[in-house]
C-alpha cells in the first residue's frame, strides 16, 4: 500500500487536523465525536445543512462546509458511514432555531445512522428533515432492494440547497428543493483501477491491464460489469446513455454537467471526457449551461470518472451561481 499516511488508523484524525490547521477562517473541527462546522455556526434563523458519510471521498463532505453550502459535515472512518452521535452533536452545534436538513446518500449504513440521529435530535426538540439522494443509474431501482446509490448529485444538492438556506428560506422549502435536485440529477461512474482502504492494506478488487469496471459507486467496490478497456469516446457514451435515457432528460433541456474524477484520474483526462460528453449531448439537443470538472466526490486514489447531469431551470441555475466559500468549492466570495 503506497500512501502518504502514517498509521492507517490515524488517517481520518490527521486529515481533520490538517483541515483544521489549513482553514480556520472557514471551519472549526470537533474531535470525539468528529465533525466539521462552519467557523460562524450556528447562524440564527438560517436553516442548517448537515451531511456526512465515510471518509475517502474528499473534498466531499468536509471540504464543502462554509458559506453557501454545508453548515456541518460528519466524517466516518474510510468508506464507513459516521455514527449517530456524530450527527447528533453536529446537528446541535449548527441549529440556529430554523431547523436542520440532513442530506443523506442512499447507503444502508448512512440511512440507518442518520435515521437514528434524526430521532435523537427530534427528541431534543430540533426540527430535522432528511432527504436521501439516490441518483446512480448504474443501480436498478426497486422497492425490494436498497435502491439506487447516492453519488454525484449529492455535491450539487449541497451547493444548491446551501444557497437557498443562505437566502433564509424555511426548512420545508429547502428540503423540497433538495428533493427536486435529486429528482433531476442522475449519475454513472466507472473505474480503471481499484483503490486501497488504508486499514485493509490491499486493493478492494483486482483488475487486469485491459479491464475496467462500469457502474461503480464511490466506495472502491466493484461495479455492475467488468469490461474490456475502451477509448474515452466509448466510455463516455456508456456512462451518458443510461443517464439521458433515464427520467428527466429531453431535447431542449439545459443541464449542469459534472465530470468527476474518482481521485486518481488527472484533469487532462476529465477534459477529454468532457469533450465527448459535450458532443454526445449536443447530438441529442441537450445544452450544457453549467459545469463542474474535477475531483469532488472521490474514492481515495481510484482511477476513473463519473458523469452527473442535472436538469436546470432558472431557480437551480441562480442558486448554483450564488456565492460559495468553502475549502473545496469557491466562487463569488
Amino acid at each position, binding site marked *: 500500500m503506497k500512501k502518504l499516511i502514517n498509521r492507517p488508523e490515524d488517517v481520518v484524525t490527521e486529515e481533520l487536523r490538517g483541515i483544521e490547521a489549513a482553514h480556520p477562517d472557514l471551519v472549526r473541527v470537533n474531535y470525539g465525536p468528529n465533525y466539521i462546522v462552519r467557523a460562524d455556526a450556528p447562524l440564527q434563523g438560517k436553516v442548517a445543512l448537515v451531511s456526512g458519510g465515510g471518509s475517502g471521498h474528499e473534498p466531499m463532505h468536509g471540504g464543502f462546509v462554509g458559506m453557501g453550502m454545508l453548515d456541518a459535515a460528519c466524517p466516518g472512518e474510510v468508506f464507513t458511514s459516521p455514527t449517530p452521535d456524530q450527527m447528533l452533536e453536529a446537528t446541535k452545534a449548527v441549529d440556529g432555531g430554523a431547523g436542520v436538513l440532513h442530506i443523506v446518500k442512499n447507503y444502508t449504513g448512512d440511512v*440507518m445512522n442518520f435515521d437514528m440521529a434524526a430521532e435523537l435530535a427530534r427528541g431534543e426538540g430540533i426540527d430535522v428533515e432528511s432527504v436521501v439522494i439516490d441518483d446512480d443509474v448504474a443501480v436498478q431501482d426497486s422497492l425490494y432492494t436498497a435502491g439506487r446509490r447516492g453519488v454525484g448529485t449529492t455535491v450539487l444538492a449541497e451547493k444548491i440547497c446551501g444557497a437557498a438556506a443562505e437566502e433564509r428560506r424555511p426548512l420545508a422549502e429547502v428540503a423540497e428543493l433538495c428533493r427536486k435536485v435529486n429528482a433531476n440529477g442522475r449519475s454513472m461512474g466507472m473505474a480503471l483501477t481499484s483503490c486501497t482502504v488504508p486499514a485493509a492494506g490491499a486493493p478492494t478488487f483486482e483488475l487486469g491491464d485491459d479491464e475496467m469496471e462500469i457502474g461503480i459507486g464511490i466506495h472502491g467496490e466493484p461495479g455492475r460489469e467488468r469490461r474490456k478497456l475502451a477509448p474515452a469516446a466509448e466510455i463516455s457514451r456508456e456512462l451518458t446513455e443510461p443517464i439521458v435515457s433515464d427520467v428527466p432528460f429531453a431535447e431542449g433541456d439545459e443541464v449542469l454537467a459534472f465530470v468527476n474524477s474518482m481521485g486518481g484520474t488527472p484533469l487532462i483526462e476529465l477534459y477529454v471526457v468532457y469533450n465527448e460528453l459535450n458532443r454526445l449531448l449536443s447530438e441529442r439537443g441537450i445544452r450544457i449551461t453549467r459545469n463542474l470538472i474535477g475531483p469532488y466526490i472521490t474514492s481515495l486514489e481510484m482511477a476513473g470518472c463519473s458523469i452527473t447531469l442535472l436538469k436546470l431551470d432558472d431557480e437551480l441555475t441562480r442558486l448554483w451561481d450564488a456565492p460559495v466559500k468553502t475549502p473545496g468549492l469557491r466562487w463569488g466570495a
Partner: protein
Amino acid sequence: MHDGVTVSYDDVLRWIQTFAATMAEQRQYLTRLDSAIGDADHGINMDRGMQAALAKVDGLADGDIGALLKTVGMALVSTVGGAGGPLYGTLFLQMGMATTNKSELGPDDWRAALDAGLQGVQMRGKAEPGDKTMVDALTPARDALSAAVADGASFDEALRRSAAAAEDGMQATIPLVARKGRASYLGERSAGHQDPGATSSYLLLRTAADTWGGAAAPTDKEES
C-alpha cells in the same frame, strides 16, 4: 432451561470478550469477504466496535446482563458506523432490553433475547430472509434455538443447534443475489460470495455455543 442450567453475568461477559477476540482474529477474513461484494471494511468495523465495547464494559460491575448488553449496543452504535453499527448496535440494545435486570439467563431467556435482537435488526434494516444479509444467519439460529427449547434440549445442545443453523444460513447466502445492503448494487454479480454480515453473525452464535457450552456443560454434568 429444564435442567435449571443458566449462564451468569460473567459468562455473558466472557462471551462478549471472546466475540471481541474473534472479531480481531477474523478481521482480515471478514474484510476480504466484504471486498468481494462490499467495501472492504466489515472486519475493520466490527473489530473497532468490539474493542470500544470491551473498554466500556470493563467499567460495569453490577451484574445486570441487560445493562451489559445495552452498553455493548451503545458502544457499537457510536463507534462502528456503516450498516454494521446500527444493525449490531440494535441487536445488542434489543437483547439488552429483553434481559433488563437479569443476572442469569436460561435457554428461554436467551431465545427471547435473540428474538428481540433479530426483530430489532429487521425493523432497522428492513431485510427479509433471503436478502443475503446477517438476517440469513440470525433467523435460522433463532428458529433452531426455539425448536430446541421446545424439544426440551439442554442449553448446551440448544446453543450448538442454533450455531449450526447459523452456519447453514451463512453458507446459504453464497448463491443468493443480494437485495439489501451494499452487495445489492452488484446485482447478479453478488451471487457466489458469502455475505460478510451473515458470517460475523454466525461467529457471534458460534462463540456463544463455545463459551457457554464449555461453561454450562460442567455445571450441567455436576447437577445431573
